[in-house]
């Protein structure tokens, strides 16, 4: 079997229209299982940790300053811990900071230290539905307030089996939120570097969209791409392991600060090409904006694929189509936003080099 025959064999194996339709239907259905219903209709307000951080810092300063002034004016503050179970029937979180006094040995100096970083979430669960609203508040040495809002759900079904109202108390640990895009990207990069499933991992920082915060590109196995952007204090995945370098997919390129990603893919040994353009939406997802088909064969029988006798002159025949409408070469070229650079072509960094680039060494 020649190399060409080998390629032709696999070129001919494609998902049929029947299978594609079946899978589209199957994979469009919501996941089955006990949690499928419990997450529907829930809106999570995205946390804005930067402002939360500022607010926390201000609150911290206020507490420390106020506490110091108050302490100097008073002889002693008795530490009183309110009973966290004092309001079991409502959705209440207890926020408490205890001040503990440590007398330094024989110096007479008294130090005030915030002792607790505890959070108690009391959740009242009527029947099996969620509490209409929840507020999680946490205090620690740095005061951080996070609010999760769950829209009110009204059950129209009468209570049958569970007439009793139950109260559940849980304690959560909120992970520390990185203070900057640099730290957030480093966390993401480290998760790749530490994952034994990935090999040949390298990184690059690219200015993909219009702002001055770069995007983090991660290459694994030298043929798979991940892309992340930073927004609202967190990294957001734009590309989740797209392959390139095989099956006619030549890879992904961008124009700096133009919010334009280009990908070229081809079938039939280049006789039918696809140039796709993608951009980041305001909702921080990557969206395909345009696909240009380049036909390097003359489709005499109109079946949409090259047949024998239709590509003898492939070098002299080229047509461009967008959404089935033929366009000129100039119109096709106008979709490009500038000179495209392969992601990772300018710099390919190891984790240590990335740390240095992020200024986190």
């Amino acid at each position, binding site marked *: 079997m020649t190399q060409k025959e080998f390629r032709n064999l696999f070129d001919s194996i494609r998902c049929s229209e029947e299978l594609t339709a079946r899978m589209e239907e199957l994979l469009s259905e919501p996941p089955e299982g006990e949690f499928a219903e419990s997450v529907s209709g829930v809106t999570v307000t995205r946390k804005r940790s930067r402002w939360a951080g500022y607010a926390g810092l201000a609150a911290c300063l206020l507490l420390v300053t106020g506490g110091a002034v108050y302490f100097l004016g008073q002889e002693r503050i008795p530490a009183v811990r309110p009973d966290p179970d004092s309001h079991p029937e409502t959705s209440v979180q207890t926020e408490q900071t205890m001040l503990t006094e440590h007398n330094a040995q024989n110096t007479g100096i008294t130090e005030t230290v915030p002792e607790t970083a505890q959070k108690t979430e009391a959740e009242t669960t009527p029947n099996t539905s969620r509490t209409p609203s929840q507020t999680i508040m946490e205090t620690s040495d740095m005061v951080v307030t996070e609010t999760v809002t769950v829209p009110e759900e009204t059950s129209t079904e009468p209570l049958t089996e569970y007439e009793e109202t139950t109260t559940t108390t849980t304690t959560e640990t909120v992970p520390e939120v990185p203070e900057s895009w640099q730290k957030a990207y480093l966390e993401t990069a480290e998760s790749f570097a530490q994952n034994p499933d990935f*090999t040949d991992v390298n990184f690059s920082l690219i200015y993909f969209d219009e702002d001055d915060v770069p995007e983090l590109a991660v290459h694994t196995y030298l043929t798979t791409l991940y892309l992340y952007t930073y927004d609202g204090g967190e990294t957001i995945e734009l590309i*989740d392991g797209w392959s390139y370098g095989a099956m006619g997919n030549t890879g992904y390129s961008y124009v700096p600060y133009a919010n334009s990603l280009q990908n070229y893919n081809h079938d039939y040994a280049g006789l039918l090409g696809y140039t796709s353009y993608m951009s980041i939406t305001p909702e921080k997802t990557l969206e395909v904006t345009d696909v240009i088909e380049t036909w390097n064969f003359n489709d005499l029988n109109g079946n949409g694929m090259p047949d024998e006798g239709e590509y003898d002159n492939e070098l002299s025949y080229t047509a461009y189509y967008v959404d089935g409408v033929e366009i000129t070469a100039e119109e096709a070229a106008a979709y490009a936003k500038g000179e495209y650079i392969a992601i990772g072509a300018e710099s390919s960094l190891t984790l240590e080099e990335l740390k240095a680039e992020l200024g986190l060494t």
Partner: protein
Amino acid sequence: MNVENMALHAFRQYGDQVLRLACCYTADMREAEEITASVFQMLMEQDPTEIQGFLLQNTAAQGRGLHQHGVLAMMPEDCAAVLYLHDYEGMEPERIGSLLGERTQYIIQLLEQGRELLGKEGSV
């Protein structure tokens, strides 16, 4: 991207690849389509970190042990898959080894055996 959209997106991206790999084990389109459907359903339920690896690993796992036809029956298990992943997809033996759970040296050995068999038999 939610799970079902992720799975759908993955099917559009990797559907042909999974089907081709399944064919390497079954040499039967109907069986290969069943494996493909099953693997993407698993993806929908499990939401793994490395999607392509997950799909190909599970395709190989489901394809192994099935009745094979033609020259595939004369090949060691995984041999056709290794030929496909290496010669068609352009994957390195290290990557193929990590997908199939085999040592790189064994993958290289399968490649050599497969090429020899194909040369003798002429077609798959």
